[in-house]
């Protein structure tokens, strides 16, 4: 399968008063053409920073992409000129952010925000772009698009705003859409609407989608492959069904067990992961999960495990015997 986006050994640091925060530390993953991939992790694990790094949206000089490669159709986005990355942003790779209310410009009409991308990237004339903006709103299911396109963001509900964000992201028919927590700010019933919409758009346009989320439930149904991230790098990656059925990293196992499930009988107390994620400015030597892991061995505290294949396409970074976990 053709890799459309290949992130290799990405490292992004933030230079703060507290020291060097290694937000992304040796992260590697890829997305195939037209594929839907999930990136799961808790807040502060570096999942959003890694997405921002792909489009070089890290605030310099506070944050610096220190190393690695981001190959988009074979072209390293970290090496290309500022002009070239601007061509890619919003055109070939677009983003949907978590909070639609803060990502839309409150003083511009929806139409202006849609036509901006169309005029910039597709070279459309004003009239043509306006017609296209109405069509796009219609596609993402905003009723009465012709009239509503003139409205401003605050006149829409959260779910509707997220639909507008999706319309903007889709406007140039990109190869990859990065959706960073697209449903976190939304209610469950609206969340279902938005996820269905993203899935439908992906099917119709053949766009590859990267869904970044902290919620293991959200991605279960939609993604083909899953990447689990902890403290700056991947701990487990593989086909979705395989990871949910046979998680092989103690962190993934803990994460799956600590969420109560609607379809299972209520158990007395859920098993939980004790402790907190490590401070990214003072990372421990060895495995980053060692402090919280119930299978920890001496080796884990000295040496950092690397991803190794446990079954076809299923990799994990752990020293403990894969068959003896659980």
């Amino acid at each position: 399968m053709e890799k459309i986006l290949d992130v290799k050994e990405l490292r992004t640091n933030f230079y703060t008063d507290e020291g060097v925060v290694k937000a992304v530390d040796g992260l590697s993953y890829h997305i195939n053409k037209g594929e839907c991939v999930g990136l799961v992790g808790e807040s502060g694990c570096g999942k959003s920073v890694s997405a921002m790094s792909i489009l070089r949206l890290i605030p310099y000089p506070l944050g610096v992409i220190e190393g690695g490669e981001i190959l988009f159709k074979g072209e390293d986005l970290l090496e290309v000129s500022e002009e070239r990355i601007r061509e890619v942003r919003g055109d070939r790779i677009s983003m949907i952010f978590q909070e639609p209310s803060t990502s839309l410009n409150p003083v511009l009409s929806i139409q202006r925000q849609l036509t901006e991308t169309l005029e910039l990237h597709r070279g459309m004339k004003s009239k043509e772009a306006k017609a296209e903006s109405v069509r796009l709103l219609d596609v993402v299911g905003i009723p009465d698009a012709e009239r509503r396109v003139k409205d401003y963001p605050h006149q829409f509900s959260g779910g509707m705003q997220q639909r507008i964000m999706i319309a903007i992201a889709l406007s140039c028919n990109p190869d990859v859409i990065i959706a960073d927590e697209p449903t976190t700010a939304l209610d469950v019933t609206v969340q279902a609407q938005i996820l269905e919409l993203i899935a439908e758009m992906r099917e119709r346009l053949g766009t590859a989608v990267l869904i970044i989320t902290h919620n293991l439930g959200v991605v279960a149904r939609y993604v083909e492959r899953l990447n689990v991230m902890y403290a700056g790098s991947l701990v487990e990656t593989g086909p979705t069904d395989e990871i949910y059925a046979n998680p092989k990293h103690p962190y993934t196992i803990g994460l799956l067990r600590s969420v109560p499930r609607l379809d299972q009988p209520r158990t007395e107390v859920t098993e939980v992961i004790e402790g907190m994620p490590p401070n990214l400015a003072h990372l421990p030597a060895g495995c980053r999960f060692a402090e919280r892991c119930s299978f920890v061995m001496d080796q884990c505290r000295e040496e950092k495990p690397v991803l190794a294949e446990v079954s076809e396409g299923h990799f994990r970074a752990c020293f403990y015997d894969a068959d003896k976990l659980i």
Partner: protein
Amino acid sequence: MTQINSFERKLVNMAEQHNKLVEVENLVTYFPIYSGLLQQKTGDVKAVDDISFFVRRGETLGLVGESGCGKTTTGRSILKLEEPTSGNVIFEGKNLIEMEGEPLRKMRAHMQPIFQDPFASLNPRMNVGNIIGEPLFVHNLAKGKELRERVEDLLNMVGLAPQMAERYPHEFSGGQRQRIGIARALSASPSFIVCDEAVSALDVSIQGQIIKLLIKLREKLGLTYLFISHDLSVVRHISDRVAVMYLGKIVEITTSDQLYKNPQHPYTISLLSAVPIPDPKVDRTRKRIVLKGDIPSPINPPSGCPFHTRCQMAVEECKTTKQELRGVDAEHWVACHRV
């Protein structure tokens, strides 16, 4: 013979009455809207619109619904942090709505809130010891050495080190702050706690820890919770019974097990179907009922059943007739024409 029977019935009634720690009767909380040059009242946000329920002693009642459905206002009205427009809240046999001043202030020691956002609900200028000790001080329950010891006990109880009393909120992570919030709520030894989205702002692994802590404390201290959240999986997990709210009204109330096995109200059914299950094999087989549109405005809620504008089973009757909660069985009440 009949006399004995009626006497027995009276005893049963009394026992049942004693069993109820909190009873909410026809609670209504409206927020007036003022507009225009003269700032005249032009309408109401009908946040809570005539709801009744009770919480038994030692029980956890879950309250779920989407944002804007009035679940938080319900919790705040019960604690009288919000002045209800009408209705009664009976706590330990006393009507809180009629209370004010000193008796109300004293009553507050028995009912405490835990808030959603641990970053906004702790005073950044007070150290943890003072935050946790404040209710003890305010209610004159302890002072000096005794107060310090009690604070240390509380910190231990919520899984924090006693030395942390000297530190300030900004030095703590979200999960630790929520533990501080819990310790503060517990400090005056209340019997009733309103947890308003107490775990929603936390990460998955930390959320699990706090749920576990809340369950442990409930068992240890015999607490009664009103657990308000938008997360159905969490609510069902922690609660004995669950009430589902939509646009200021309770549409269904039942036991946690029945809620998943046998939901009756179309809104509950669609809400349950929208909750993703973290298992692709199971989740893909579930039929998802995607509701159309958004929640109508609580300023001008639909006539009749508030859900009829989005309901797939709505009939003509739903547009005009208000639905009262009707019993499917003793523990299961639904407000729908189909029941």
